[in-house]
């Protein structure tokens, strides 16, 4: 008779007090840093401490670097906030990339075509806002409408919508290219600065940061305290329960995706009008997908998303600095990011479960 015996087994924990849960998370990050250091030493032979120092310098080293960090953080956080209502509803929207692009494209279109016709910057920005939000909302509405009425697969649908938006952008870039033949648009309205978001006390990115802070608070309130937020939570949990409670599931799906898309479109406008003042197919640069991770890591809590998006942006910017200073490939920092994420996600398991050593009863 075989007599194998596992050394330990998995037991579900009772609910942990919050400070213990955070202690586990803290320990996981510490452990992740240790593992990162070991990997650094083994693979590159560099001193991990100087590596970390460089990463820190790359993000907070100068005033300019810090503002870049804030800008990137605000954009990633904003897109993450935008996808959150949909994911809370368990609507697998991986189309943020396209929704932001649609908004950015619409914004650029307004800036280019109306740049010499309108003289009031305020009116210009208002038109940009309306058009970008509408374009993003349309990109969100289409998959939701098909999902609600014909139960199409939203993951494939939103993914395909990304390609449409990016191809459209590529098409218009050729039409609007400056100078001809360059394949680029260049800076839009460089002289008149029409449609550029205003600088707050001389800081270019301050307005974006401010807007995203307000967005975070508003979305938190919307999800937690509003009737819409309640409907989203119920639909996400069980459509049958939602119908039972008299919630119009189709309408909630469509409404929420319009909101998600509209917020994405708005972020597209912030990118084009507030940061890039240009349009390229790399405008969003994969942040529509990273946002999904930020949102899930934070368990759809907008406030926690500030932390998760900060972590990802910090690692990304730190990586660039490391790459230039130590002549390392940027992929190395992606390895480090991967290790840290692994520990952060993995530690959630230990918050829900614990391992218990099998007490060996008498040996047979």
């Amino acid at each position, binding site marked *: 008779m075989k007599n194998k015996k*596992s050394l330990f087994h998995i*037991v*579900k*924990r009772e*609910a942990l007090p919050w400070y213990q849960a955070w202690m586990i998370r803290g320990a996981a990050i510490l452990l992740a840093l240790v593992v990162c250091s070991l990997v650094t030493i083994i693979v590159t032979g560099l001193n991990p401490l100087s590596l970390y120092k460089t990463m820190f310098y790359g993000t907070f080293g100068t005033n300019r670097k810090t503002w870049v960090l804030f800008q990137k953080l605000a954009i990633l956080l904003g897109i993450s906030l935008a996808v959150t209502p949909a994911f809370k509803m368990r609507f697998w929207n991986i189309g943020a990339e396209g929704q932001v692009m649609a908004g950015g494209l619409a914004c650029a279109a307004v800036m280019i075509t109306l740049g010499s016709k309108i003289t009031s910057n305020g009116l210009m920005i208002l038109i940009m806002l309306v058009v970008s939000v509408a374009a993003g909302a349309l990109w969100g509405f289409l998959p939701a409408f098909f999902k609600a009425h014909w139960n199409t697969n939203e993951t494939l649908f939103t993914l395909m919508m990304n390609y449409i938006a990016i191809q459209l952008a590529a098409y218009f870039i050729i039409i609007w290219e400056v100078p001809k033949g360059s394949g680029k648009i260049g800076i839009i309205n460089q002289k008149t600065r029409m449609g550029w978001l205003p600088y707050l006390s001389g800081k270019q990115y301050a307005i974006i940061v401010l807007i995203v802070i307000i967005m975070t608070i508003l979305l938190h309130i919307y999800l937690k305290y509003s*009737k819409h937020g309640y409907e989203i939570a119920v639909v996400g949990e069980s459509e049958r329960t939602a119908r039972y409670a008299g919630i119009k599931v189709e309408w909630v799906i469509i409404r929420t995706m319009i909101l998600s898309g509209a917020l994405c479109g708005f972020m597209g406008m912030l990118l084009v009008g507030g940061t890039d003042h240009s349009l390229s197919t790399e405008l969003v640069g994969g942040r529509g997908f990273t946002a999904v991770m930020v949102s899930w890591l934070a368990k759809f809590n907008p406030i926690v998303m500030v932390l998760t998006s900060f972590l990802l942006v910090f690692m990304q910017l730190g990586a660039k600095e490391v790459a230039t200073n130590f002549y390392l490939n940027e992929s190395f920092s992606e390895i480090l990011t991967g290790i840290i994420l692994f520990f952060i996600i993995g530690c959630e398991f230990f918050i829900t479960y614990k391992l218990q050593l099998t*007490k060996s009863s*008498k040996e047979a």
Partner: protein
Amino acid sequence: MEAVRNAIKMEGITKRFGSVVANNAIDLELHEGEILSLLGENGSGKTTLMNMLSGIYYPDEGQIYIHDKPVVIASPKDAFDNGIGMIHQHFKLVDVFTATENIILGLQDAGKMNLKEAGKKIKQISEKYGFDIDPDQKVYNMSVSQKQTVEIVKVLYRGADILILDEPTAVLTPQETDRLFAVMRNMQKDGKSLIIITHKLHEVLEVSDRVAILRKGEYIGDVLTKNADQQSLTDMMVGRAVSLNIDRPLPVDPKPRLEVKGLTVYDELGVKRLKDISFTAYSGEILGIAGIAGSGQRELLEAISGLYPIAEGTVTYHNPKSGKTENLAGKDPLEIQKAGISMAFVPEDRLGMGLVGSMGMTGNMMLRSWRKSKGIFVDKKEPERVANAVWKELEVVTPSVDFPVRRMSGGNVQKVLVGREIAQDPAVLMTAYAVRGLDINTSYTIYNLLTAEKMKGVAVIYVGEDLDVLLELCDRLLVLCGGQVSGVVDARTTDKREVGVLMTRVGGKTNEK
């Protein structure tokens, strides 16, 4: 007298889930060639204990012996290797496969799969024990009892000599139950050892040799069936005497409250699920709905509450306050709510339809009231008050009103659901399998709540499966059979036999009041 040999001996078995001790130092023996009933209230740890024998759970402490040899059962395969086969409550069959294909599925015999040979062997097993099974029938064409037969043959085919049946009679009609018991006795004669988990005391007395009783995760003791009766078993099970009589006052001033006429519905595939259903539910009475599982009970309640599309027929509601009547057919739940019709519905699928598992009691109370507050924000005060009231009055076991209901035990989940529905102060209260899976104490709490509602003048519709309860709790019984009304009988004068016949044959013998 020859010495008793143990097929299974469990020694000091303990299993914890978080802070909950599901089994605490249990010692249990199953003698060779006996039928042992494992009896206990819900949440007493019966299924957990058996799952450790079948390799689904692994004990935290303790030792298991099979035929007096110590063994480690770490996986279902280990269980099979030790000759243990478990028939679960929920069948695990592939619908598009035949009986034979399902039975040999997952077996790793050397050589080519030989369906013919397998079919022969299945026939042999069937004849030996008296199963009624067609090896080539597809599972989706089978009745519930046929599927169960396939599950049993499956474990026998794999050479199990110890069989564990987890509430096998819950889904069977009385006639099918009799057949199952006959088969069980045949297996016993052949030297197999069997454990049957059941709630139904008369079945325990009918089929088993010995009864082992668990209470709240503790092993209470065992008793030879011939020395036991319903009262003594109940006492051991609940720890104190529980009256088996359900209090049933006569209806006071019954008036028509809900009139269903010619109701016909089709499912998504166009199959007729309800055919020309007509009945009236009166205020101040409990109308029981009996029938074999899947006879249209779910469709009927969902159609009335606006969740299932109605093809033909009317559902007329008599408003007790205004005296007006209103046709509900064609309205969705929101429109019904807005028309001021207070209808409460306790659906069969508690967490999948009636509640939001991830939310606490407060969030779930809100499911019925969130729309009422003005403005765009939800009002949490009123639902919190209701949650606290339900928590106290129904003795819900939970650490707080914000504790996710998904993590509560089944009985507490149901208390939350029923408590919320009653708190709406309904004029019609519909319940589907309100006591399924609940322990005796909680079941009685529910019976008493329903009777109290009835005495308040509510029209209560009770869809049930346990005939004893239907006959004792309800005033009238509507029996469904294959989506049709098979008969309406007076619950005080009818008997089990009559209802059983109506359940299996439309109109079997009507006894209109």
